[in-house]
């Protein structure tokens, strides 16, 4: 077991708590190819947890396991203290796990607002007749959803593109909208798949600021994947390092930086 002392002394909106997600001895194979080999780590409530590693290290597979897209052949996952089995993406969403994708998966034909409203899918309950007859619940629900979405629009500073179809937006803004859609579901855990990929410096800084603000303001636990180490080290509380599907390091950014395996496998190669 890892020690349970508070990791950060600096003040933040929500103190880092108990593990919310625990992965035990996870192994994932595609046919004969091993993607992940007995990987264990945990994610604590309200922390920013990064999974890093060179390309092909198994980062995305790891995220897809948490998200329920892949089912590991071995190992178990505990979420909020309870074992999880038969995960599917829909079930993950219901349990408060939202995600973004490396190659932006937005509803391209819809406006920014509609994309975020779609993110409220699980928070919509009114049935066909209620909507058709505009019964109070349907109306109230619509207003609540709109209010929640508007709060996120303000939070992410995208008021000016509210009505713009997302396909017309530049890449950096699309990434931000995708983050917004994930937030609209009011998730407990936010999975970010290379949120900074393909961005210029300024966009990266903005994205970092938003990730930290989300964590600080809403207390959302963040799990993010990156291969760009520099940025991650600045915003993460703890970092897991993967290489060839194996865990080679785990700890605070400083610990990871001084870990010889990591330096050999990752830093040595990349820099």
């Amino acid at each position, binding site marked *: 077991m890892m020690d349970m002392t508070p990791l950060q002394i600096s*003040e*933040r*909106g929500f103190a880092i708590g108990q593990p919310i997600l625990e992965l035990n001895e996870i192994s994932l194979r595609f046919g004969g190819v091993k993607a992940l080999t007995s990987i264990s780590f945990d994610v604590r409530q309200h922390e920013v947890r990064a999974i890093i590693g060179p390309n092909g290290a198994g980062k995305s597979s790891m995220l897809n396991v948490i998200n329920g897209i892949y089912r590991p052949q071995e190992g178990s996952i505990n979420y909020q203290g309870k074992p999880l089995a038969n995960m599917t993406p829909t079930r993950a969403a219901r349990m408060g796990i939202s995600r973004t994708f490396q190659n932006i998966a937005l509803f391209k034909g819809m406006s920014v607002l509609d994309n975020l409203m779609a993110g409220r899918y699980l928070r919509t309950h009114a049935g066909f007749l209620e909507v058709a007859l505009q019964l109070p619940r349907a109306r109230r629900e619509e207003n609540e959803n*709109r*209010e929640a979405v*508007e*709060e996120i*629009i*303000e*939070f992410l*500073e995208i*008021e*000016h593109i*509210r009505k713009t179809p997302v396909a017309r937006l530049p890449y950096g803004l699309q990434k931000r909208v995708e983050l917004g859609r994930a937030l609209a579901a009011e998730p407990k855990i936010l999975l970010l798949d290379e949120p900074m990929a393909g961005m210029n410096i300024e966009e990266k800084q903005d994205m970092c600021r938003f990730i930290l*603000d989300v964590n*600080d*303001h809403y207390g959302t636990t963040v799990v993010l994947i990156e291969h760009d180490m520099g940025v991650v080290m600045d915003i993460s509380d703890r970092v897991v390092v993967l290489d060839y599907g194996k865990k080679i390091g785990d700890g605070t950014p400083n610990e990871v930086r001084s870990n010889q395996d990591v330096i050999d496998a990752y830093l040595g190669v990349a820099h």
Partner: protein
Amino acid sequence: MVIDNVETDTFSKFLIHHSKTRGEHPAIREKSRGIWRTTTWRGLADEAGSLACALHAKGLQRGGHVAFVGDNRPRLYVAMCATHWLGAVTVPLYRDATAKEMLSPIQSAEVTHIFAEDQEQVDKLLEILPQCPSIRFIVYDKDRGMRHYKQPQVISYEELLRQGREAEPLKRDFLQAEINRGAGQDVASVFFTADETGLAKGVVLTHSALISRARAAASVDDLNDADVALAYLPPAWIGQNLFSYVQPMIVGYCVCCPESAETMLADLREIGPTYFLAPPRVLESIVTQASIRMEGASGWRRGLYKSSMAMARWLGPRILSGEGVFIGFRPFYALGNLLVYAPLRGVLGMSRVRVAYTFGENVSPKVFMFFRSIGINLKQLYGSAESGFFVAMQRNGEVKPDTVGKPVEGVEVKFTPECEILVRSPGLFREYHNDTQATALAIRDGWLHTGDAGYLDDDGHLRVVDRLQNVGALHDGTLFTPKPLENRIKASPYIAEAVVFGDGRDTVCALIDIDAAAIGNWADKKNISYTGHADLASRDEVYALVADEIAKMSAQLASDPVLANAQVRRFVILHKELDPEDGMLTHMGAVRRDVVSKRYKALVEAMYEGHSSVNIDAETSDFIIRDVPTLTPMQSKRAA
């Protein structure tokens, strides 16, 4: 519906008056989270009263100074009301100013309380806090990211208001007494304006000075409480302050705050203001946007637009001024209005604009007439913070593109032998804050020396030529006034700014700052690939385009024998746009001539020395210098 009441000599008295007479009317509207939210006059007065209680409890003294750093938000204006309620002085600062730039105003005015919009502003203030012992409280509006600030000086607006609301019931008599204590001669505001050299001076204005000017201006256009204005320019600038604080106080109209700078245009369309203020730079960018859009339109649409606009230039201004237009032409203008002008006004958010103003001395006649020709009643005014802003204004039906109109009621104008404009008016500022020397230089025998050169024309309209210090002559004696030349050049949609030189020289040369958006669009169409601003700015094609644009302007000058020699002969395109952050522009986007000419001295000298390119430092690539073909008066006549 101007309130002419001897009793109402301070803003607080006006506020109470409105709260009593039109309590449920909207005073401020703000778009927030997608919805327009309204503060009524009663709501404004109530909140300001409570806030005043809290500010008093936090030690704000009568005559103390309160600074404001933020965008146009209802809370900013509530806080101004509360400040004036207690007889304190508002000191609005530019939100894009650096911490260093904020230091001197805060120190010199001994600001005790500051209203800051968000974390970004608070951070800047905390950075200079150690150098500003006078600061007692920093009040922030938006709480995002502010959770961890534990400094005793930092307090949220919400918390302050909560304390005020708690205390208010017991303090009613005190609040009433505070209002009664105020008098018109009290100082209302200090506006810090930077002169040409970039040095900040605090312009001190009293309640009565501001109120008198706002009253006079309101009567020119018959402003009433049904009017609507949009607050989108920095509140630290006296013009915005007059339009969104002073005039609404006098007239009782409603001010709308857009959601953010990026949504300004969309919000403008939704609100449809009736009273509008726009600096020339904003107008220029609107015209550029419109022309970029039309360039992208399909053939027949562009044709329709071009022909309609040609007709509009010819008929529009005359129809707007109520001059006689041959009855047979009217149906054509009406058709153009239906197909082009009305939709265009709609797109620009100006469908309901009854009166709009811009500054005469900086606007190019072409840009100015664009708006008038499509039926927007844009007019020019002249004034500064020192002169109470409203010195001269164009009246309906008396609009000439090259004058700023007649002096406003109460204003006297006279001229020195050097043509400097002197102003005497009830709206004059009292003094430069803590600077008796500068004050004595500016106001002599009750007359404000504006530093502008100008004259009254035969109809009694004021014509402003340029800053006096810029007026000079070429070697051959040709009068040289840069501003009118620059205004003509930047009327081109491709040119953002121009700075011309010629005083004491043989010829006129220009530094050109291109409009990157318009030229980028042009380059895309021509299939010219480029990597960025600097690359674009050094392209031969772009040089040819700009030379062409300047030559067009020269052709107009050439027909005038006196000015023929003032045609631009050579120019350089700057690699980087002029930026307020480099001090090249003021916060309102006007060029700081001195700073620019100092920075690019080597370029200017190279132009006069006849080089074809020059390198001013090792890090940047060479600047290219190009000649512009010029015409003699003879040629120009023949061409005509």
